[in-house]
């Protein structure tokens, strides 16, 4: 039989022992726990306060930097508006050039009776077109704000032109029949008057556009210079030949 170690006996005796704590022990412990919980909440408030301050500072900084960029935004708006204006100007140039080409084609068909004139006309019209283009580009470059010319459909423009041509021719014939001499100055005056009326009519039809008078006159001058003048001359020539034939037959 093995001898039980005496220290194991001591251990068994001591392990069985329990000692009742005093009645006030739990009260003291509970108070310490309460104090500890209150103390642990305070640092939390500090951290929350610091976090709120940092968040507010970041928010104000963001607002400050976003608010300092209105100039940039305005510049961007101005630039895009200028780009839009340039683009609209280019679009307007294209149909006007197209009108020049169409008028030249019509004048070519009208002048096929006189071959010499026909051969000369295209060349002249080509030169006129190029010179007109050059003048127009010069005008555009000089102007800061591109003038907005009234956009009237080409068909309406041609109809108006034909009407005015007919009127001018009728007036010239009237003067001639009365025996009055028709000078170049008179014809020029009639042309200017007709052009003014045409512009007035087109301006009435286009109500939304703001018309720059000076720019319009320049456009009119360049347009009027050759193509319209050529039409008038052709019409006058035809009517003069008609008259001459009529007079010759009468004498006969």
């Amino acid at each position, binding site marked *: 039989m093995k001898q039980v170690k005496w*220290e194991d006996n001591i251990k068994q005796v001591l392990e069985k022992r329990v000692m009742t704590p005093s009645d006030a022990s739990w009260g003291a412990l509970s108070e310490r726990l309460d104090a500890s919980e209150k103390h642990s909440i305070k640092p939390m408030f500090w951290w929350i306060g610091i976090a709120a301050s940092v968040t507010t500072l970041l928010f104000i900084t963001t607002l400050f930097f976003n608010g300092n960029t209105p100039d940039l935004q305005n510049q961007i708006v101005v630039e895009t508006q200028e780009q839009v204006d340039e683009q609209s100007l280019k679009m307007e140039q294209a149909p006007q050039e197209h009108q020049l080409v169409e008028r030249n084609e019509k004048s070519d068909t009208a002048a096929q009776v006189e071959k010499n004139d026909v051969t000369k006309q295209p060349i002249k019209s080509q030169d006129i077109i190029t010179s007109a283009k050059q003048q127009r580009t010069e005008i555009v470059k000089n102007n800061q704000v591109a003038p907005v010319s009234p956009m009237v459909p080409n068909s309406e423009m041609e109809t108006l032109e034909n009407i005015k041509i007919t009127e001018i021719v009728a007036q010239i014939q009237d003067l001639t029949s009365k025996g009055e001499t028709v000078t170049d100055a008179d014809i020029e005056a009639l042309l200017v008057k007709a052009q003014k009326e045409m512009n007035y009519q087109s301006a009435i039809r286009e109500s939304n556009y703001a018309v720059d008078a000076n720019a319009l006159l320049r456009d009119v001058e360049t347009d009027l210079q050759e193509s319209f003048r050529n039409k008038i001359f052709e019409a006058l020539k035809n009517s003069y030949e008609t008259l001459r034939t009529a007079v010759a037959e009468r004498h006969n």
Partner: protein
Amino acid sequence: MKVIQLHNNNIQLIKKAVKNNREAQHVLYETHAPKMLSICRYYIKDLQHAENVMLNGFFKALTNLKNFKNDGSFEGWLRKIMVREAISFLRQQKTLEFSVEDVEIVHQHDNTMESEFELEEIQRHIDALPEGYKIVFVMYAIEGYKHHEIATLLNITEGTSKSQLFKAKQLLQQKINTSNRQHNETSEMGR
């Protein structure tokens, strides 16, 4: 089944106590305080001081309950906290000294001792030991710590721990034998 149910109840109680449920904490205290006070009494002679050390231990345990992992028993975890608190108290008192000088021990030829001891007598003999001897003896013989664990906790070498234990055993054995002899003589005289 009852053991499992008790274990589950204990887990639920601890979960509530972690959330600072005062009632749950009170139940834990009432359940384990008597045993913990006894453990503190192993190391500290004065009962009032032992109770204060026990309360300190419970305060640390309840405020750090989230660190308790359910891989061991709650009582074992609590017990370790109490031992550390007791050692810390003795260090503060500056009574914890590991004397290298040999205490006068009368060598006993007969190493056997009577198996039955009275509780208070045992505790009295342990209290009479020098602090260094007492702590190492209690930690090794009663608590079941290994020498390297004792050395780490007390910041001594394993050799010192072993020598302290040897001397503690010898001294304690001597005191108990002397006490028993006197008890026997008294009882014989009473007849």
